[in-house]
């Protein structure tokens, strides 16, 4: 019998390890729906990337920005339609006749999460700090000349010139209000655990794993937020995120892929949300490549791409063809922009007018492992084959792809945009103004008439006249086919059916003060 023990022992240890770990399994909680918001509970949101930084004035990553917005709030905020601007930490404003002075009245009773009341000094400090950030979002506040604080609840913005997007710029997350002088801390120390007036306050962060915020007891919207805590985790694998949601381990799955939407719609315990977005996907055409500098070639390509086929086969029907470089959820979007739609006869006619009537070879950058880009590339390759344009794929990892497009070291390449403000100005400047810093969305497009319209629209404070200017601009930009506007797609968020009040705004952010577990 002695001889049996070691083998027996090994078997027992193996069994114990298996059994002990299995015994730790958590049991599922009961499911029921509640009709009215219920206070309490915590949720976990699994994202595709870890947060980079919580310095709202210098960070450009959505996975960071959307968390900062739970902590720090601006004076005004874009509404659910992505177009209206609603009073938030301010209750209203008045504008001088010359359009250069805005006087804001601050909301009474607003406190920071450290219990200190918010005053005009905090507002002045916050915006002055934000606009001083040269490598950050400061450029959007460039119209501000100075800020004065005649009383603790009044802030006056003096502008250098009349600036139509001013209110939308003030509503940018980077202009969120923080305590004067970083509440006595250094800038770096402050942004490792920021303080604001938002529904949630800093709890803890494990870099590379999670960020947790807890309820702000001083939040100005009485009774909100409903949740005790929110944790954001970092799960890069989309299959794992989906399994975690189905298993009840997380309550929100960020960006499930298009090919899983239909399945998730019918998955018990899961709500598949498709929120109207400001995302527009483009095919960029670098005009430094001679054939693409020819407007007839660009138009031919634009006509030849079957956007409806892309929406159907690549997005599984969850999107719609784009007709403008501006998306429908942005103010002054024009439904009559005249974006060139699929028409092979017109495509051939346009190519015949060009210097490259016999076709040419062109390289398309495709992100390695990027399924959507790869599938779109194949549709485009087939479409352009009909024109005699030979599309050759060049696969690069996404970082290299991004770098090459940014440096204009490409011929054809995919890109997209989501709006940061509820005004077209930011995207218009980026996309069509060669002096906007990005070589007209990295295409090299330069039409002085369009640039002039953009500059005029920036200073035009009459909404009707502004709408006319942007309509003209969109029409001309579509005719110049400087970008191929491919499609508009919704924001994809799968949530637990126990989670209510979770809504993603067209600008991509979400308001967790309204979320509750039922």
């Amino acid at each position, binding site marked *: 019998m*002695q*001889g*049996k023990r*070691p*083998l027996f022992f*090994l*078997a027992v*240890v*193996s069994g114990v*390890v298996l059994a*002990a*770990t*299995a015994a*730790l*399994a*958590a049991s*599922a909680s009961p499911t029921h729906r509640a009709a009215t918001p219920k206070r309490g509970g915590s949720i976990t949101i*699994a994202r595709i*990337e*870890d947060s*980079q*930084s919580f310095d709202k004035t210098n960070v*450009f*990553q959505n996975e960071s920005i959307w968390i900062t917005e739970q902590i720090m709030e601006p004076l005004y905020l874009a509404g659910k339609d992505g177009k209206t601007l609603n009073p938030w930490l301010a209750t209203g404003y008045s504008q001088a006749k010359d359009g250069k002075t805005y006087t804001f009245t601050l909301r009474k009773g607003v406190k920071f999460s450290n219990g200190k009341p918010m005053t005009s000094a905090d507002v002045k400090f916050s915006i002055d700090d934000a606009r001083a950030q*040269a*490598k950050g979002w400061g450029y959007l506040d460039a119209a501000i000349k100075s800020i004065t604080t005649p009383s603790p609840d009044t802030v006056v913005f003096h502008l250098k010139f009349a600036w139509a997007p001013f209110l939308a710029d003030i509503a940018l997350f980077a202009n969120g209000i923080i305590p004067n002088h970083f509440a006595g801390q250094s800038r770096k120390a402050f942004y490792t655990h920021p303080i604001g007036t938002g529904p949630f306050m800093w709890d803890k962060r*494990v*870099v*590379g*794993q999670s960020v947790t915020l807890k309820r702000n007891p001083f939040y100005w919207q009485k009774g909100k937020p409903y949740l005790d805590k929110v944790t954001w*985790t*970092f*799960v*890069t*694998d989309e*299959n*794992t995120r989906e*399994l*975690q949601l*189905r*298993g*009840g*381990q997380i309550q929100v799955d960020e960006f499930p892929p298009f090919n899983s939407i239909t399945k998730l719609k019918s998955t018990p315990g899961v709500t598949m949300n498709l929120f109207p977005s400001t995302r527009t996907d483009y095919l960029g055409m670098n005009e430094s490549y001679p054939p693409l500098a020819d407007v007839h070639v660009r138009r031919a390509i634009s006509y030849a791409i079957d956007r409806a086929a892309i929406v159907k086969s690549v997005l599984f029907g969850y999107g719609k063809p784009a007709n403008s470089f501006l998306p429908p959820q942005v103010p002054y979007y024009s439904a009559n922009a005249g974006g060139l739609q699929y028409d092979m006869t017109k495509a051939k006619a346009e190519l015949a007018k060009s210097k490259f009537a016999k076709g040419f070879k062109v390289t398309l950058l495709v992100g390695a492992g990027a399924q959507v880009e790869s599938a779109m590339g194949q549709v485009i390759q087939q479409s352009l084959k009909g024109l005699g344009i030979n599309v050759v794929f060049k696969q*690069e*990892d*996404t*970082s*290299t792809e*991004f*770098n*090459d497009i*940014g*440096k204009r070291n490409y011929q054809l390449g995919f*890109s997209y*945009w989501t709006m940061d403000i509820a005004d077209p100005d930011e995207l218009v400047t*980026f996309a069509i103004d060669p002096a*906007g*810093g*990005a070589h007209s969305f990295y295409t090299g497009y330069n039409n002085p008439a369009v640039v002039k319209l953009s500059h005029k629209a920036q200073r035009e404070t009459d909404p009707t006249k502004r709408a006319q200017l942007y309509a003209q601009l969109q029409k001309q930009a579509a005719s110049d086919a400087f970008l191929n506007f491919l499609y508009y797609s919704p924001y994809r968020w799968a949530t637990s059916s126990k989670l209510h009040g979770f809504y993603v705004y067209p600008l991509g952010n979400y308001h967790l003060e309204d979320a509750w577990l039922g």
Partner: protein
Amino acid sequence: MSLGGYVVRRLAHLVPIVLGVTILVFFLIHLVPGDPARTILGNQATDARVALLHHEWGLDRPLPVQYEKFMGRLVHGDLGSSLFYGMGAGRLVVDRLPVTLWLIGFGTLLSVLIAVPLAALAATQRDRLPDHLVRAVPLVGLGFPPFWVGIVLLLVFGLHLGRLFPVGGYGNGFTGHLHSMFLPSLTVAFGIAPILIRSLRASLLEVLESDYVTTARSKGLPERRVLVHHALRNGIVSTVSVLGVNVGFLVGGTLVIEQVFAVPGIGQLMINSIFQRDFPVVQAVTLVFSVMVVLVYLLTDVAHALLDPRVRFE
């Protein structure tokens, strides 16, 4: 040579290895196309902002100057700052090292727990059904890629069979880690165990036919005692080397498993840092990987010598 002297001499080898790795990694990662500034700035990457970040990070200086600065910091134990997180690269690695060590350690333990009984069974039942099964079935497991095995384990044990284990993550506290890391470690074990089984089975078969085993049997010792006390102890020596080599590979091979199971180890940090072109972190992780591999091989050699007194430290 004594054990202590041998270990010190082997550890001294780390210096030229680390130096070689720093040169190789530093210049290779900088040769890879891509720009951390453009990655971080996204669609807001204007030339002016890119230039500002390059200047702030020192990336606008010649490469040899950057290397000189890197080495200057390294000799003071400073691995530089992460371009993405803005915090010390060394701290990032140190924070995640226990997670990867858990995965490697737990995975190795499970592989031994699986391999030893099965190899012993196969060796004692040579050419019978159990032997054929033990030789064939694990090979099927070896043929599947770890990400596929991982997803299947998650589906079965994380979702369908009463949610026995969490779908990914690291857990909190010892029991939390044990619970969360079981499936990823089992995936690791499925990759190593078949190799160990074959190696150990072959060694055991050889040992079971040796003279001293015949002597032990002729003394009337029970077969199981012969197996465990005489055969297994000698047979396992070569398997320890095989295990060491596989664990060495595993140090850099946990990347996929960490991704699938959302395990926040240094493999995951490495992948993300490569995509973000976070040069200081890639350099730091590679350094740690190289040191770990050297240490695993050293431990293997020491274990080999302790198990087999005929082996001398030279």
